[in-house]
Structures are given as structure tokens and as C-alpha cells.
């Protein structure tokens, strides 16, 4: 059960970088290597063993080909030698603080600590009464967590994850004037929510504003003018109606 897992682990970046270090060590011909070494167990090369400090891996000057044989393919090591170690170190900057993998569906707490959203969510569920940041123990909240959207992060979520979607980002609209508001196409639009009498009042005042005649919209000038006049009488009617209503409200 555990054996295949360890084999798998040889493909993890951390192990790979360990292999690189070992390889670099051997190239220099140094025999002392502190800590733990990977030994070839039989021919499968899957066993990971610790030895007590300051023991060398296999003989002093191990040929590169033998180092490569530690990996089942040998190709991987070459790739790593081309500088993947530096990359993996850079990537580890963006590792989730809980699963230690590169953060997936990344979120950042207000205290600045990075997590996968599924990981953080599960942590919040395990301690519902004491929601703290695992790293700095600052108080955290699901709503105050900021998602990080990278350039290619719009991938579809794995449907197997039953984790609720991570909280959405908060954004504010830029403050900008509204050019051509109302007059651009000869339309005048009015949106508003208000108490009944006031709403009526504002809209009727808006209607009273003069509109320039729109060329091309109506065929024939007279037609347009008559329409305008019609509208004006209509608006006047509404205005009077509004005044009557307000008066009724006030005196009734």
C-alpha cells in the first residue's frame, strides 16, 4: 500500500530537486552528504531511506548515468538539471499553507496568507467557533477572503469538489461622468426609486426639459413638431395631475 505511494513521490518536485542536489554533489566529487540519501534498493529505485548524518549516498564519484537510473525514466533528471530547481523554488512561493501544493483556486486572507480555497474552507468548517488564520492566528472570515485570479485561472472547477464556490472579488466601479446622458439619441431615460409622490414629481420635471428635435428620426419636420407639441401638452397634464395628487396628499 505504501510502497507505490513512495514511488509516486519520486515524481514530486521536492524529491526531484533532492535528486538534483545529490547529482550536483556527486559531480563535484564530494563524498560527504549530510542527512538522508536515496539508495538504490534492488533495481526498482523506489526506496527512500534515511541514514544518520554524514553518510555518502553510493560511492564517491558516481557516474551520471547511475544517478539517472534512480529515476525510472532518467529523462526527468535531465529536465531538472536544466534549471527546474530554481523554478520549483519560485513556485513554492505560491504553495498553499495547508496542503503545501501550489495553491489551487487561490485565496488570500486579509493578513496576507495564501491558501487553496478548498483547504481554507475545510479548516473554517473544522473550527466553526474559532476562525483563525492557520499561519498567524489572526481572525478570518469567509467574506473577507480575497480570491486571486491569475491569467489562466478560469478553468472549470472539478465537479467532484463539493466545496462552495470561493467568495467573489470585491470591485468598485470607477467614478466617471455620464457623457450624452439622455440626449445622445433623442431618448431621455429616467431610473429611480422613490416614495410615490416624489417620484412622480421628479419624473414630471424631467419631462418638462426641452428636447432638441431629432433630425432623420421623423420624416418631415412638421410631423416631428406636432409630436413634440403633443408630448408637451401631455407632460403639462401630468404635471397638473402631480400637483393635484400632492395637494390631495397634503390636505386629505
Amino acid at each position, binding site marked *: 500500500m*505504501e*510502497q507505490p*505511494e*513512495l514511488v*509516486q*513521490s519520486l515524481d*514530486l518536485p*521536492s*524529491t526531484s*530537486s*533532492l535528486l538534483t*542536489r545529490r547529482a550536483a554533489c556527486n559531480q563535484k566529487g564530494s563524498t560527504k552528504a549530510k*542527512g*538522508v540519501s536515496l539508495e538504490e534498493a534492488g533495481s526498482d529505485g523506489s*526506496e*527512500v*531511506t*534515511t541514514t*544518520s*548524518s554524514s553518510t555518502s549516498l553510493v560511492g564517491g564519484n558516481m557516474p551520471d548515468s547511475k544517478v539517472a537510473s534512480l529515476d525510472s525514466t532518467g529523462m526527468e533528471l535531465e529536465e531538472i538539471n536544466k534549471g527546474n530547481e530554481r523554478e520549483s523554488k519560485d513556485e513554492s512561493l505560491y504553495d498553499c*499553507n*495547508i*496542503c*503545501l*501544493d501550489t495553491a489551487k483556486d487561490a485565496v488570500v486572507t486579509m493578513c496576507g*496568507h495564501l491558501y487553496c480555497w478548498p*483547504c481554507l474552507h*475545510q*479548516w473554517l*468548517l*473544522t473550527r*466553526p467557533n474559532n476562525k*483563525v488564520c*492557520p*499561519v498567524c*492566528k489572526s481572525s478570518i472570515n469567509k467574506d473577507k477572503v480575497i480570491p486571486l485570479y491569475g491569467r489562466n485561472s478560469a478553468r472549470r472547477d472539478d465537479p*467532484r469538489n*463539493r466545496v*462552495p464556490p470561493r467568495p467573489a472579488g470585491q470591485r468598485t466601479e470607477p467614478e466617471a461622468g455620464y457623457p450624452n446622458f439622455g440626449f445622445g439619441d433623442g431618448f431621455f431615460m429616467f431610473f429611480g426609486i422613490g416614495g410615490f409622490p416624489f417620484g412622480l414629481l421628479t419624473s414630471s420635471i424631467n419631462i418638462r426639459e426641452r428636447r432638441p428635435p431629432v433630425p432623420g428620426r421623423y420624416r418631415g419636420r412638421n410631423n416631428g413638431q406636432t409630436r413634440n407639441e403633443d408630448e408637451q401638452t401631455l407632460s403639462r397634464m401630468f404635471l397638473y395631475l402631480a400637483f393635484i395628487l400632492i395637494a390631495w396628499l397634503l390636505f386629505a
Partner: protein
Amino acid sequence: MLKLFKKSKDKIPKSEIITEPKEPKTPPVSKCGKPLQLDNCRWERRLHKELMSLIKEPPPGVTVDTESVQQNLSEWKINIKGFEGTLYEGEDFQLLFKFNNKYPFDSPEVTFIGSNIPVHPHVYSNGHICLSILTEDWSPALSVQSVCLSIASMLSSCREKKRPPDNTLYVKTCNKNPKKTKWWYHDDSV
């Protein structure tokens, strides 16, 4: 209209309340299904990562007994050396870490094992350790490495070798699992 708004506002927290207790219930339901296997992968993956970093850059005086780890990934034996210049200089101790499949959300079960159990005011003679990060102060951002470091620091800061005052009673009455003990953390000095 206003009433409608109020209703919809009320509904949102309710649904949250309903969904949250459901979440922890799902893993037991799916005990034989795929989700648990996925979980298994996740905690095993993290343990692998920790093992690799512990092997690659071990803290001073700490070594992993990889043979024990190979036999069972959820039980690690870790050797700790007493630091020079402390009361435990020259002594070797062995720690047993037991992980369950809720790791790292649940803390590991950590005890001293073997013939030499340190004589320390926070270590009981059966190997149980009174250390807050092993229970209520546990955080998934902690690791085997940081637990080892805390224990080493706890040993190093000791000024008098003695057992906890309630040692005999506790050892007789306690559960095998130190996490079942309701610890009372009152002494930060050691």
C-alpha cells in the same frame, strides 16, 4: 416590496446555517465512495511533502526513522537529540507521530516512546506531552518539523528535571490517546 426584501435577506443566513452543518456530515456518508479516496490522496500527499522536506532539510538533532514510515505512512518514529548545554545533553529520545486521515486539519497524536522518556514537568512517564499545539492550538500550517522544534524547545528551556505533579494519578487513569485528555495549559515558562 419591503417585506419581500426582508424575506430574501432572512433566507441567506438560513441557507448558510443549513449548509454548514451538512458539510462535515458528508465524509462519513461517502466512506466507501470516491470522495474519501480523494481525501486520502490529499493527506498522504501532504505527508509525503513533509517527509521529503524533513529528509532534505532536517532541523538540528532531528532524524526520521524512514523504515517505520515506509511500513506505515500514518505512523512516524522520529529521533530527537537533547541539545548541548541543556539538561538533556547527550540523551536520545524517540517520538511517535500518529496521523489520521483528517490531517492536517486534525492534529497528529504525538507521544514519547521507547525506554528513555524525558523527565520534564510537561511530559508524563507514559510519554504523553502537555503541549497546547498538539490539541487546541493546532493549526494546519504547522508541520511535523514545527512540532519537533516546539518539543525540542520545550525540553531545552527546562531548568529542573522533574515529572508533572499529577504524574502517578494521570498515568493510571488516562486514555491511551493523549488527545482524549482534556489538557489544562497553564504554564508557559517551560
